[in-house]
Each structure stands twice: as C-alpha cells, then as structure tokens.
C-alpha cells in the first residue's frame, strides 16, 4: 500500500565511493559505513543503493514508513542477511569478510525480540554470554550487573514464558548488552510498551549514549527527537533526508506552527480568500486547511497578531507550537 504512494524525491549530496573517500581522507571517526547497499526480496526492492555513515559514539535514529527497509538495513549490518550488492564497513571491517568479528561487536535487539520461552532469564543470559565468548569467570558477575541494570534481579529465576512484554523487552536488552558491545542496534525497542516502561527504556538508552555507537529504529517521533544525535528518514530503501532533529524540523517546516480553529463552518465560502490573505504575510511558509482547522507554518512570530485578525473574531481556539519530528514525518510523506 505504502509502496504505491508517490513520494517527493530529495536531492542527494554527492556520495563518494569507499575508495574515493579513502583517497581523500581516512575517517577514523566512522563506526559504520553503509555503502551502496541494495537488497531485493523477490520482486520487492527493500534497499535501493542505500548510503549512510554513523560516527563513533553517535546515536543515529532511523525513521520511515512501514516497509521502508529499516529492518533490512539493520539485519545486513548485523550480518544476518546478505546484500545483493554494496557493503557495510563496521569499524573498517567488511560484512563480506569479517562476519564473526563484526557480530561480536554488535548488540542487537530485533524488532521481534523473541526469546527462548523455556529458559529462565538468568540461564538465557548465560547461554548468550557463552555464545558471545564472554570469559567463563566473568559471566556470573556480568549477568548480575545487567539484571540489576534492567531491574530484573527479582525475576531472574523465572521462565521467559511467564513474562509480560515489557519484562521480555528488558531481558532482550540485557541480552543485547551481555558481551558489552561497542555498537548497539535497537529495532523499535519501545514498540507496544506502556508509556512508563517505554520511558524507562528510553532513559536507559540515553544513559548508554556517548559510550556506545547506537542505531535506533523507531516509529515514535518524540523518541527520535529527544534521543538521537542525527535522524535519517528512510523511504523505499533510500535515505530521503538526514540531519539533526533540529535541522530536519527547521528545514521542512517553519520554526513555529500556528493552529487556528474556526467557529463557523460557513467560513468555508470565503476560505479561498482567507488562505490567500494569510499567504500574503512574508513570515508565512505554508497554509493548510483540514476540517475547520488552519495549520500555518511561520518563520517567526512577528505577524501572528495580524494573521489572527484576518479571521475577524470567528475563532474557536488558537495555539502555537514548535514543529515536531512528527510534523516533519507527516509532511515528508504527504502527497
């Protein structure tokens, strides 16, 4: 469904190939370099020449509609899927050559964090610690520490199948951290969690920030906004836009959004004139009318009073807000 919608095409900065860049500069600051990555599933093109760099210690958010290719890009980076073409360099190592080394550098929380139901939480963590090659002597103390960290010490001896979604997610996160990886990849870590649990997990990710390089895929825009250093908007397997949340917000919309609800639906008759009148102000970037609400993007608040006057008192409510990433997202995928 989503695939059928025509999206505006954004211009790309010229992206140099790996070799070209090597000639120009050796960037030690990059932890993950995704280079011309393509992947198809049968006829579905999940990734289409994707390029993306992630710096050491950076928290990069990836947002995009369902089916954009977020999970696919992540799975390729984790060496779970093989790309049709392109490469990913993790700390300079290629996914085509150093799979085992790359895998041991990454802690991955999948979109569907299914765990072995029969296992007790502690056993599950020991099992994965052993698989990650955590030294035998360190496993127990490491697990103790992690259980403490995700606040699961009291349920350590219970089986996974007795856990609620939030508890499972906590075990999942502890599992991803069990080998103290340099890179963490979270695919929708707060999906389906209650606001309080989601908040806890966000705070947890915030604590990890700076120490680790983190990729966070999410559909929650406020989450991306508040946590991420940079956000990449992915669509149909390509990067549509990328930048700090602030950049994105100011780039696509004005700095301020004015919402005006009108009282009288008869206003419809003259609405064309109203829209025109508002567009006449130099600070107005965009006007949109849905039902009885005008959404006006402004560059500054200088003209607010005059704009309100246009409505001649026929107003139910007025409010202003800063644009959010959600506005950016919705605006990006508006037809």
């Amino acid at each position: 469904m989503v695939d059928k919608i025509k999206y505006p095409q954004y211009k790309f900065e010229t992206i140099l190939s790996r070799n070209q860049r090597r000639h120009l500069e050796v960037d030690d600051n990059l932890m993950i370099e995704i280079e011309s990555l393509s992947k198809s599933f049968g006829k579905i093109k999940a990734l289409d020449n994707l390029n993306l760099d992630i710096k050491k210690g950076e928290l990069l958010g990836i947002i995009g509609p369902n089916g954009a290719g977020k999970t696919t890009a992540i799975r390729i980076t984790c060496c779970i899927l093989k790309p049709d073409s392109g490469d990913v360099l993790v700390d300079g190592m290629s996914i085509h050559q150093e799979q085992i080394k790359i895998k041991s550098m990454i802690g991955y929380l999948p979109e569907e964090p299914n765990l072995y139901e029969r296992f007790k939480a502690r056993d599950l963590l020991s099992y994965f610690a052993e698989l990650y090659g955590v030294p035998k002597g360190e496993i127990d103390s490491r697990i103790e520490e992690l259980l403490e960290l995700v606040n699961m010490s009291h349920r350590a001896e219970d089986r996974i199948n007795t856990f609620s979604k939030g508890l499972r997610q906590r075990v999942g996160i502890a599992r991803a951290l069990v080998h103290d990886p340099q890179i963490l990849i979270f695919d929708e870590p707060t999906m389906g969690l209650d606001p309080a649990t989601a908040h806890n997990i966000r705070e947890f990710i915030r604590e990890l920030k700076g120490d680790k390089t983190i990729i966070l895929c999410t559909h929650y825009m406020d989450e991306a906004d508040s946590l991420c250093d940079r956000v990449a908007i992915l669509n149909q397997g390509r990067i549509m836009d990328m930048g700090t949340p602030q950049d994105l917000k100011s780039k696509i919309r004005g700095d301020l959004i004015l919402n005006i609800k009108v009282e009288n639906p008869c206003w419809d008759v003259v609405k064309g004139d109203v829209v025109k009148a508002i567009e006449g102000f130099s600070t107005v970037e965009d006007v949109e009318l849905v039902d009885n609400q005008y959404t006006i993007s402004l560059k500054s608040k200088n003209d607010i009073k005059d704009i309100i006057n246009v409505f001649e008192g026929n107003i139910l409510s007025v409010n202003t807000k800063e644009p959010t990433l959600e506005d950016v997202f919705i605006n990006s995928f508006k037809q």
Partner: protein
Amino acid sequence: MKFTTITKWELKETLKSRKFLTIFILQISVLFLMLFVFNAFITNIESQEGISITPSLSGFASLSVDDEGRLFSKYINPELITVTHASFDDSMKNLNSGKTMAVVLVPADSLDKIRNIDTIEVKLYLDQADPKRSVVRDEVNNTAKILAITLSNSWIDSLTPQNSTPAVVTEENTGESLPMQIVTKVMLAILLFLPLFLFGNMIIDSVVGEKERKTGEILMAMPINSSDIIIGKSMAVVGVIALQVAIWMGILLITGFEIPNPLLVYLLVIITAVPVIGVTVIIAAYSKNYKEAGIGLTFGYVAIVGILMIPPLIYITNKSLISNISPLTMVIRLFSGDVIPAWHFLIPLGFVIMVSAITYWISIKLFQRDDVVFGPRPGLIRLILEFGGLKRRGG
C-alpha cells in the same frame, strides 16, 4: 568448537523439560510393550528356568517323516521342528489335512545305498500355503548336510582302522535357520535401532522452531558459524538418542536377551544416529514450518528405513560384502555369532561417515542462506541447480 556450547544448553534445557521426560519415558514403555508383543508372537516356554522372556522356538514347525532306519530324523533339530514318524501314506494324509507342514520321505534302501556309496534321494513335500515352510526347507537341507558329513567321516574312519578314536558324531552348530534369524535376530536388532527414529521431532523443534518462533534472528546474530548451530543442535539430539539406546539396551540385557558384544552393538547404533539426524536436519533446515517438516520427515524416514533394512535382507540371502554398508547388517551378524573380520566394520563406518558428511554439509549450506532461513525461500529445483553449480544465486 562453539557448537559444544549449543549442544550443552540444548541438552540441559531438554532434559529439564517435564514434557520431554514424559515423552522419553513413554517411548521406553512403548518399546517395552513391543517386546512383549514380540515375545507373545514367538510363544515362549523355556523349560528349566521357568518363565523367561527370551524367545524359544520349540514347536515352531512340524514335520512328518517316513524314515525306517531313523537315519535322518535323528539329526533334525528338535528345538525347532516337531517330528512325527508315520508311513508315507499317513504322512501325506496329515499334510493334506494340515496336521503337519511337511513330509520327508527317506527311501527304505538308504542304508544299503550308503554302504555302496550311492546317492540317496530324500524327498521333501511342502505345504506351499504355509509361510513357515522355508524354515522346514532349511532345516531339512541342514540335516541332510550334517548327515552327509557324518557319514563320510565314519566312512573315512572305517578305511583307516589305525585311527583308534571311534567315530564320534560331532554335532555341528549350523545356527538357526535363516527365516528364524529374521524373526529373532533381526527383530531384536530393529528394536535397538528404533530409538533413532523417535527423536526427529526434537531436531525439527530445535531448528524449525527457530524460524517459527522467530528466535533464529538472534541466533544468527551470534558470532558463531552456521555449522556450529547445525552441528550443535544435532549433537544434542544424538546425545538424547545415545541415552535412550543405553537405557533400552540395559533393559534388554536385564530381561535376559543375549546381546553379544553389547558395547560394539551400542556404538554401531549410535554412529547410525549421526547420519539419520543429518537427514532430519536437512529437512528441518529447509522447512518453513512444522507442518512441512512433518511431511518431509515421513518421506525421509521411509528412505532411511529402506537404506538400513535392505542391506541386511541382501546379506541374509547372499552374504555379499556390500550389504555390510548398513550398520544394521553388522548388528545382525554380531547377534548371530558371526565371526566378523575387523575390517568389515570399516564398511558401515565409511558409509556412515560419508552420508553424515554429505547431509551435514547440505544442512549447513542451507542454513547459511538467508533466503532459506528468512525467505522468500527458493524452490527445491532451483536450490538443487544452485548446489550443483548449474545456476548462480539471484541469477
């Protein structure tokens, strides 16, 4: 060597599961039940020691003999065949009325003929409708052979009087007749191999379960090779089989079954488990879900049973060397007290190693492919072409 971690944890978690233990014990009970059915089939009355569940075969077949000199009937194995003496006419009446299964006619002038070193012609009449007729045929043939050997020995002795030792009629142990071997040795051997087929579901659950329950993704993200996953999981199942066969053999030994060289028999059964699980794990690696795997398993096991069972049948009929490729043949040979040259064991061993290498190689190759594990899964023919190098992936 990361696969040992997987094996260890799979085994640990499996043996902890109450559901598994219930099934495990149930399986042994069913095997035990089969033992009784098997024994009831071969009516057992073992004289001195009272009731024993070791099969005894007395009265298995009946034979009516017209043999005036009692020359022939003396050598017939009474444990196997109940012999009645009657004139030829009466014997034939018994045969026709079903009172006996076969009639042997030893000519009245046999003794004279023997003295003149003439051929005696023993005639055997068989009831073609009786499935046990071949037992009688074998026994009569054996007896004729023993008789011939005995006679020629005594004849040689009579020619060389300086040989003072009297002609002792040494009873030659020719073993049970072949069809009886099928019934006793083969059945027993099959009972020992049965546990190999009881744990297919365990490997299916362990491999297909990773796909169905979507736990495979984190396993694939581990810094280990696909081979570790496949071999680790398979060895856990081989371990469980080894445990069950050990318990099972223990029960058989305690209940009085004779298993010659039990350690060797045990090893033969266990090494067979490796390629059997290898075939199962191919099916599991390719299957999308339990249903598919279940269907695959049925076909796979029919094939395996064929490969295991046909060589012993060939061995029984013509003892050809190639029939030793099945470890079942070797076990049957051990059971029947055959003296087996050590190098013969290399044949099933080589076969087992070869099949294991091929099956695990295929399974690992399958499991390495993200399209097989995560979809969209390529068709079987396409996969075969790709494996054979006739087609390039994605091409």
